[in-house]
């Protein structure tokens, strides 16, 4: 297995050589039934013990898991550790995956549970009070002429805009960390990850009505915490 991954580490596999197309499994290119079929094939390959298929599965979902964990925990390095734990658990529990929800939702659920456990671990050791805002959460610095990350499309940003963006991201992240974990999880899954309320309910294992009420309270709390920022946005 390690030899295969060593080969994989050298990025020898291009999208065309992959056993299952990574781009197609992203969900945006193919229609939903085709994507679900490919997902089922990928899960079946992983279950049969194909290490390449599992590497493919990890590569497809690692970005979303790292982003979710970073937003829920507030530390980029911790998020990467949690992401490893999440995929270890995915590997162990793939046999129990019944396909009632999508694979993505199932992985989100494991990730949220892992983040919750990690947070409880911190609280027992009183480390959560010392958590400072992590610069790693701001993402790669956007150089002028490079497509903006999360800003949609290609945005040319000057140094002033880049500084403003980073400051804004820090304030939003600080406000997120001030929420209760349940509200934070709902808000991140809905607003940052873009899941529907139904998918959020499946990922958290709670009724849809609970998701909507938590979402409403979380948005209100964020509005109060980001008063200066949202007033600019609200009047704009």
């Amino acid at each position, binding site marked *: *297995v*390690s030899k*295969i*991954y060593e080969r*994989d*580490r050298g990025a020898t596999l291009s999208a065309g050589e992959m056993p299952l197309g990574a781009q197609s499994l992203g969900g945006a290119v193919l229609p939903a039934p085709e994507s679900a079929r490919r997902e089922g094939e990928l899960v079946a390959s992983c279950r049969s013990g194909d290490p390449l298929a*599992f*590497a493919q599965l*990890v*590569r497809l979902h*690692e*970005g979303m898991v*790292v*982003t979710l964990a*970073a937003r829920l925990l507030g530390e*980029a390095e911790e*998020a*990467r550790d949690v*992401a*490893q734990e999440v*995929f*270890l658990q995915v*590997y*162990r529990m793939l046999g129990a995956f019944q396909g009632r929800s999508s694979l993505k939702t199932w992985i989100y659920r494991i990730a949220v549970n892992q983040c919750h456990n990690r947070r409880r671990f911190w609280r027992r050791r009183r480390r959560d009070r010392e958590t400072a805002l992590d610069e*790693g*959460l*701001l*993402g*790669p610095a956007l150089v002028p002429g490079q497509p903006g*990350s*999360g*800003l949609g499309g290609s945005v040319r940003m000057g140094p002033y805009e880049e500084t403003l*963006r980073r400051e*804004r*991201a820090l304030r*939003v*992240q600080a406000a*997120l960390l001030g929420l209760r974990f349940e509200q934070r999880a709902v*808000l*991140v899954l809905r*607003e*940052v990850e*873009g899941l529907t*309320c139904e998918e959020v309910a499946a990922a958290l294992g709670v009724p849809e009505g609970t998701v*909507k009420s938590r*979402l*409403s309270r979380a*948005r*209100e709390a*964020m*509005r109060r915490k*980001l008063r200066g*920022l*949202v*007033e*600019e*946005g*609200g*009047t*704009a």
Partner: protein
Amino acid sequence: MTCASVHSRLSEWLDGDLEPAAARAVGAHVAACPACSRHAGELRAVSTLLSELPRLEAAEPIAPRVADRLELVGGARRPALAFLFRGVAAARPLILPSLVPAALLLTVILAGVLALDSGPLPRYGWRPGGGGSSRRRAPKATRSSRRQRSISRASARRSPSRPRSWRAGAKARSSSKRSSLATARSPASPCSREMLRAKRRSSRPSDSSASSRFAIADAGSR
């Protein structure tokens, strides 16, 4: 529709999750009320700010690291008998290392108890319900006490201490009562005969005690 009821539904209205009639009512109120319109704009801005947060990528691919860890967990570095505990170790990774010192401690305690317990048995053992230590010397037995003990032993032999059932227990209790009365009255038993004699002597008016009289009479008969 009041502003308070609109505020409680604004989040759902923005997501398009309200019923058409309710959505129309909220929309009409927001269009007419500047405060609610501003509130809705601020909530929309919160959503925009959150969706603009940058997406993060792992600094280096996670798949090889996960593969290394899977190799470590499931590879040849495991001990030979680990397959017996694979399920337990997967569920609670720290349970096996914590069981080893516990097992050692238990062995040491058991060895200590056995080493202490291997000495000579005490001469006068424990008496159930009697209390006191086993090393205490028993009082010197007098003739009367020996007699009393033999009577109590005989009655204990006759009455079963643990009846098998309620009915059997009741039967056993009544029979033991009857037999104890019979032993007290029947002249066949030498102990009961002596007791009756002693009772008769003690009932006579005298200044000396019944027990001393009994002892003298007993000595005289010898």
